[in-house]
């Protein structure tokens, strides 16, 4: 009797179980709802981004026209000093400035991750980054507390439960019904019979999870034009297979331990708790205690102190700023210094004091993220979570890349406007077209793969070890009866 025949037979048995259909309907409905929730969230982000881009295009055009007229010597319109597109200081602070946008990735509807609390856009400005690079998106905190219901959550938490619910009594059930002896009396290797029983159930759960992913991808309008998206989708499926294999391995090991159905259910539940709840809790508790988030409250207070100190010693700040920017003196033709240059000097003085604090803040955050990343090896659930979020573009790495690209751009932006403010050059239409723009550069697939591989490898090894253990146990079980 071939393995396939046994699978087919097992499927016929399974089809008659009510539990199966309840599980299928529940899992399917929940998964679809989760996919729609992720799609709605992503659609809202895309809408915001479209609004921002449209608003910027309008402002950029109208200010550009105004600049053209002013530049051509048109004096018919009076322009307030705070809205003058010729002033590099004013434009640099954000008049008509573009938005630095982190667009949702191709598979974004599949996972929300930290996207609902981290900034995904900011308006370029010469101001200090820490004062504006935050997410002020409106969301009822009561919704955020519950946690997001996205497909990643369903796969991470509910999918193992489905696998375990379908397989927990594959062997014990037969024994308790008294049919195990008959099954084992068949003229086939008993291990293969028991293996086929388990495999049929696990394959069903796997097919459900993969099917959900495909339906979700089709329904949420993920565009599949890019081969990179296909690669990510394939990796997403691979993650589901490996994670499923891990739970299948656990179930096999427990099934082989010859316990009663109730006892094996309790053991599997304990395994689920340990992997999905307890180990992540331990990891989170350790990271929170050893690498607490640095305090933004303290940072804000320190920045204010530094700004006050700089203002109190305005002359000193100005003097040391001019020492660093001798070009400005050469241009200065006596009289009161340009107030824009004074405010640059004050900002510069405050930032000099704050630089080590900002560096410490960023280092603390990075250390926290690194610690969380290395603690993921504690549990296959954490590995899987990190992988799913990464693939959907909702992971830490992508956000960090955004922050770094933002920093580079911010420096470029400042340089552009500060140099023109210092050299007292008003912006020309040519300058206007040369204003730096931000474009997020996506991470390469190979870098992504390098990050995912160790965790997936670990989970796969664990799955294989558990399956080997289960195979030995099943042999013993088959021989014992």
């Amino acid at each position, binding site marked *: 009797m071939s393995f396939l025949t046994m699978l087919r037979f097992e499927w016929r048995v399974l089809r008659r179980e009510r539990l199966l259909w309840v599980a299928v309907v529940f899992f399917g409905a*929940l998964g679809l*709802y989760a996919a729609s929730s992720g799609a709605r969230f992503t659609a*809202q982000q895309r809408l915001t981004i479209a*609004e921002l881009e449209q608003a910027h295009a309008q402002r950029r055009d109208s200010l550009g026209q105004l600049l053209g007229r002013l530049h051509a010597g048109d004096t018919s319109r009076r322009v307030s000093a705070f809205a003058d597109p010729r002033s590099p200081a004013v434009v640099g602070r954000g008049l008509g400035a573009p938005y630095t946008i982190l667009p949702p990735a191709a598979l974004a509807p599949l996972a929300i*991750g*930290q996207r609902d*609390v*981290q900034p995904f856009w900011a308006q370029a400005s010469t101001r200090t980054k820490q004062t504006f690079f*935050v*997410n*002020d*998106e*409106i*969301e*009822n*905190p*009561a*919704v*955020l*507390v*519950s*946690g*997001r*219901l996205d497909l990643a*959550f369903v796969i991470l*938490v*509910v999918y193992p*439960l489905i696998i375990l619910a379908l397989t927990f*009594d594959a062997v014990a059930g037969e024994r308790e019904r008294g049919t195990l002896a008959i099954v084992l009396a068949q003229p086939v290797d008993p291990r293969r019979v028991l293996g086929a029983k388990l495999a049929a159930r696990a394959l069903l759960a796997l097919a459900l999870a993969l099917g959900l992913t495909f339906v979700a991808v089709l329904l949420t309008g993920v565009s599949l034009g890019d081969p990179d998206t296909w690669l990510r989708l394939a990796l997403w499926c691979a993650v589901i297979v490996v994670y499923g294999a891990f739970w299948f391995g656990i179930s096999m090991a427990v099934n082989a331990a010859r316990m009663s*159905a*109730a006892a094996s259910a*309790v053991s599997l539940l304990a395994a689920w708790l340990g992997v999905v*709840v*307890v180990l992540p*809790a*331990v990891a*989170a*508790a350790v*990271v*929170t*205690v050893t690498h607490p*988030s640095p*305090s*933004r*409250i*303290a940072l*804000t*207070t320190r920045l*204010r*102190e530094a700004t*006050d100190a700089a203002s109190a010693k305005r002359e000193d700040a100005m003097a040391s700023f001019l020492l660093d920017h001798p070009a400005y003196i050469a241009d200065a033709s006596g009289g009161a210094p340009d107030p824009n240059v004074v405010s640059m000097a004050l900002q510069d003085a405050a930032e000099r004091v704050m630089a080590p604090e900002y560096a410490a803040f960023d280092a603390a955050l990075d250390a*926290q*993220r690194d610690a*969380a*990343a290395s603690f*993921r090896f504690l549990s296959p659930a*954490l590995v899987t*979570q990190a992988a799913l979020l990464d693939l959907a573009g*909702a992971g*830490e790495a992508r956000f960090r890349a955004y922050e770094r690209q933002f920093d580079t751009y911010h420096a470029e932006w400042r340089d552009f406007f500060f140099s023109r403010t210092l050299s007292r050059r008003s912006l020309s239409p040519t300058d206007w077209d040369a204003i730096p723009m931000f474009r997020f550069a996506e991470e390469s697939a190979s870098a992504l793969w390098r990050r995912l591989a160790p965790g997936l490898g670990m989970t796969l090894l664990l799955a294989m070890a558990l399956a080997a253990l289960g195979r030995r146990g099943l042999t013993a079980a088959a021989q014992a009866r």
Partner: protein
Amino acid sequence: MIATIAAKEFRELVRDGRFRWAAVVVGSLLIVAALAGWTAWRTQAQTRDAAQSTMQAMWFNQPAKNPHSAAHYGLWAFKPQMPLGFIDRGVDPYTGTASWLEAHRQNEFRFRPAMDATAAQRFGEWTTAGVLQLLVPLLIILLAHGAFAGERERGTLRQLASLGVPARTLLIGKAVGIGGAMGLLLVPVAAVGAALVMRDSGADGLFRLFALGGVYFAYFTLFLVLTLFVSARAASARGALIVLLSLWAWNGLVAPRLAADMARGVAPTPTARAFSADVQRSLANGVDGHSPASTRNRLLQDSLLAAHGVSHVDSLPFNYSGYSMQRGEEHANGVFDHHFGELWAQYAAQDRAQLAGAVVAPLVAVRQLSMAIAGTDFAQHRAFADAAESYRRLLNKAMNDAIADHAAPGQGFSYLGDSTLWAGVGPFEYEAPGLGRVLVAQAPSLLFVTAWLFALVVTVRRERRLSVL
């Protein structure tokens, strides 16, 4: 009779290796969560208190400057940590912790702590409340699912019935016994909690802890009775376990997320961009959209000149700049009240819709109660936001009035205020709503929990016969 049954059940559980293991795991998770939460809580509380007094001192120690510049300088209000915040962090990670109180605008709260954490932490972070809400019920299910079904499978239920033990007595006895074993685990944890709370917050914290204990006691009783009820009706321990675990997963994992997500659809909130654009529009043109700033100023000037019978604002008995700035503030305050009021009404509608989820999952109501008693629900965040906003308005009014009353005509922006003016406003102090008010506001959640208990007790009482087979 009940005592005998309870004693037997208690002894059996305490001698059971599985109970010991499970109790050790859940107990240590509870204590680890409480201690880790408390450590973080204390650091944050100290940082916050220090930062707030620095901010206040900075305000008081301003050099002589124009009061309007002082209003622009403003100060930051930082949200204080509530006494039981380490047990249940509630919405705190997701609301901002700081708001800048400055002239002309009501700023939103910034710096959500969740922004600076990782996804793994968000997934794995277990506060004491989380363990109490999810893991303790699971423990109850594991311990009690076989209480009847197991005896039925072993055939001992038939013996008990033949002894003439009434079903209800048996149920109560088992409940008391298992409850006692749970108490063995939970009472020491509560004592640790009480010690930590006493250390920092004294009697008020203890009262809150007591109320919190009451809510969780009700919740655990609910689960225990439910488990015994299912066990009494199930044919096998395995069947009881499957049904109970499904209920648990529904109650703890799925329903709260589902309720929250569906509630968003009931009263959709605007995007931050749309909201601030609306506010800007109303600030410029009035809430009705038909009174632009220039018209408002002209009307104000005309009416003032007419009322005082003078022809130029410099002849008014007060400084016009200060007066008109205050009128501008009042206009803006109306705009903020309108828009923030609308937003918060949307939140409230969402929260009501979410609470309706308690019909199918008691945890939704219990979680709400737990946050409220811990002082970390949205209503109490809003209470703080309102207090900060009132202080901002008070501050701005004092600054504008100083200009109106003391500046020479036409000299509104060269008039200098001094430290008496800065000190005149007094420090920003916030008194959190007391436990009584909180509980009154939580009447619907309390009602839900009571209704659940009541419904379950009624169902159990109507269950007269106990099937022994």
